[in-house]
């Protein structure tokens, strides 16, 4: 596509967004509850939210770069970038937040059968089915491949028994994509990637209270859950390949989102501390240097990643650097905030936003692969260090 075609697309897109994005959907998302997650039981906050989802889904722009046959917009990478940048300029909210879009979708596009793509992808694009991810188990955190949830072969279906943990929004999701052991004799090649409805008899969930307070995380229990054989993605016992592919995606997402505030200067956000606490000011100044460097690092990684120049394991490094930096940021936010930042419940403190965020960031370097596991991967795969 020529430059002028792209400019035309930009102009048309902008005009369309201006005409169709409701004013309420041009205001920043306040919190998780304010975002549109879709699903069978989702209650729209207002008419604008529903209208925005429906009109974007009708154009395929909830998933602009997916093929049209699967509910996408069929846009090229350049067009998708233009759409996103025009949405950002107008302040348009994402019409839909979705693990289906971010995680299951890419896995299905790569590993799913044609029938599965046609069956599962369009409802994801339209926000009709909300998905959750069943990976971690109480005994299988960093050593995920040791997972024990077992699917017993019953001919036309598996009977699944076991427990998952850290299942985000399991209590709100309609379906789950889940790693299940289907062969106890083979550690890596004994896991299958199954999909099933959360209303299937035998599935139950229980929310987890974190050190930061309430959370989207749940424990999820499976008690003789029947899963039909056609609800498997990829080959039997080869679910680890799918899982690894998805974890790469997740790490990319976490590393990129590690510093949502962009170049925002820490010292500029806390003028009192910056003016009156020289040692803290110095730490914040050094942190600003790290922030600027990390932004450049993310930009360079994306430039290299998109053109196939980056090492395939590089997202592990970005995940490590980005999450450690975010934790450091919130340590400094707490130091700069002083006793104001200790308030946990008052409306003045927005319900303890600072301390709760600070505590929540401690999970950044645990979820999606701990920092220690990331360093192992970088040392072995990128630096080619010896040993097992």
């Amino acid at each position, binding site marked *: 596509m020529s430059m002028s075609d792209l400019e035309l697309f930009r102009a048309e897109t902008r005009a369309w967004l201006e005409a169709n994005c409701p004013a309420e959907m041009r205001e920043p998302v306040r919190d998780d509850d304010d975002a549109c997650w879709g699903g069978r039981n989702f209650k729209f906050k207002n008419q604008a939210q529903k209208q925005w989802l429906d009109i974007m889904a009708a154009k395929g722009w909830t998933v602009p770069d997916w093929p049209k046959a699967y509910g996408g917009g069929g846009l090229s990478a350049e067009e998708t970038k233009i759409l996103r940048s025009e949405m950002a300029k107008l302040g348009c909210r994402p019409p839909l937040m979705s693990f289906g879009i971010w995680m299951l979708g890419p896995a299905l596009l790569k590993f799913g059968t044609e029938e599965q793509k046609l069956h599962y992808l369009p409802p994801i694009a339209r926000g009709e089915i909300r998905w959750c991810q069943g990976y971690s188990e109480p005994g299988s955190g960093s050593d995920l491949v040791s997972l024990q949830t077992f699917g017993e072969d019953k001919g036309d279906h598996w009977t699944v028994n076991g427990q998952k943990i850290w299942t985000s929004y399991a209590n709100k999701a309609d379906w789950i994509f889940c790693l299940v052991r289907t062969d106890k004799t083979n550690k890596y090649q004994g896991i299958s990637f199954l999909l099933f409805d959360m209303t299937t008899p035998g599935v139950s969930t229980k929310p987890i209270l974190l050190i930061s307070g309430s959370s989207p995380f749940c424990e999820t229990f499976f008690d003789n859950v029947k899963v039909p054989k056609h609800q498997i993605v990829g080959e039997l016992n080869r679910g680890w390949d799918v899982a690894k592919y998805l974890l790469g995606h997740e790490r990319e997402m976490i590393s990129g989102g590690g510093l949502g505030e962009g170049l925002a200067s820490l010292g500029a956000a806390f003028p009192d501390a910056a003016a009156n606490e020289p040692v803290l000011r110095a730490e914040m100044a*050094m942190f600003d240097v790290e922030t600027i460097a990390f932004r450049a*690092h993310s930009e360079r990684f994306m*430039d*290299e990643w998109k053109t196939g120049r980056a090492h395939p394991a590089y997202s592990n490094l970005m995940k490590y650097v980005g999450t450690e930096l975010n934790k450091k940021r919130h340590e400094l936010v707490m130091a700069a905030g002083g006793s104001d930042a200790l308030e946990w419940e008052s409306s003045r403190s927005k319900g303890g936003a600072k301390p709760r965020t600070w505590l929540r960031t401690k999970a950044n370097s645990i979820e999606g692969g701990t920092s*220690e596991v990331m360093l192992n991967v970088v040392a072995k795969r990128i630096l080619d260090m010896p040993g097992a």
Partner: protein
Amino acid sequence: MALYLSEDQAMLKDTVAPFLAENAPVKHLRSLRDSKDPVGLSKDLWKRFAELGFTGILVPEADGGLGLGHVEAGIVLEEIGRNLTPSPFLSTAVAAVEALKAGDADLRAQWFPRIVSGDAIVALAIDEGAKHRPGSIAMVAERSGNGFKLSGKKQFVLHGHVADMLLVAARTGGSSGEEAGITLFAIPKETAGISVDVDRLVDSSLSARVSFDGVQVDADAVVGEVDAGWAPLTKLLDAGRLGASAEMLGVGAGAMDMTFDYLKQRKQFGKLIGEFQSLQHRAAHLYGEMEGARSIVIKAQHLSDDGDPRAELFIAAAKAKTGKSCNLAVREGVQMHGGIGMTDEYDIGLYMKRDRALNEFFGDPHFHADRVARMNGY
């Protein structure tokens, strides 16, 4: 522009890297050091730089150069860093060239051809104390006759004893701390009243303390405008800072590669030490720090080449970040090499020494983090 080397830039790197590895590897530094070479660098090598076009990378085409940018200059500097090559490239072909771009036609005609041909070495007489503090230049240049008379002392003037010209920042008006009133002078080193006290530094480079004792210069020695030297001085300093950052990328990468190789060869307790997780994690962390430094350097180079006003902030961040990362690389390098890392025979210690000097050159990470804070409004 994407943050990786273009095809042309990658080709330049493919020329520069083997050239320096063959003609000026670490043993070149050792031989200059061990023979107590009074020049401290190879003028023959400097001529070869000119023949290959390196000296004219940043010189505009209209002035006889290649008219390329900071990415290209950085490619040369990174290899200089990797090989610890003693070279006037950073002072002369990068910092001085950027300053002289503000000069009038006569000044440009006087110096650019000689720099491009490898016949002139320029040294920078900026610092007046042990720390880099260009904001508080106090050296005075009084009006005298058709020009100025300079008196005062400068230090950390690298290659000052063998330079053909000194770029000197002095005060012609205003008072210490003010930007207005600074004037930048291009002064031939043989001018009467200049005396040079040279010493070898920790990294074996030769650096001078330069005294100006009523040095009389004509008005045509002024780079740019009288009292408005802050602008060309800023160009000089920013180019120097960005260039020193690129050189430190090479120093850090050289130390890191050498150390990672060692982890894969050295056996203790019946194992390669690179099998130990404690060392693997430190190695991976170091790699991440160096990658962050590499990213901010190329970003700052692009912004500089685009004339983007954010360049100043990114250059300050780049000098601070590469300073910290390169320093980590040499410290981890010596520690992970163990006893042999402390011996003069082994190269890793030379990397530690060069890092120390480059960290100090044009301002250390503390200085630049402070500038980042000020530019961010606190």
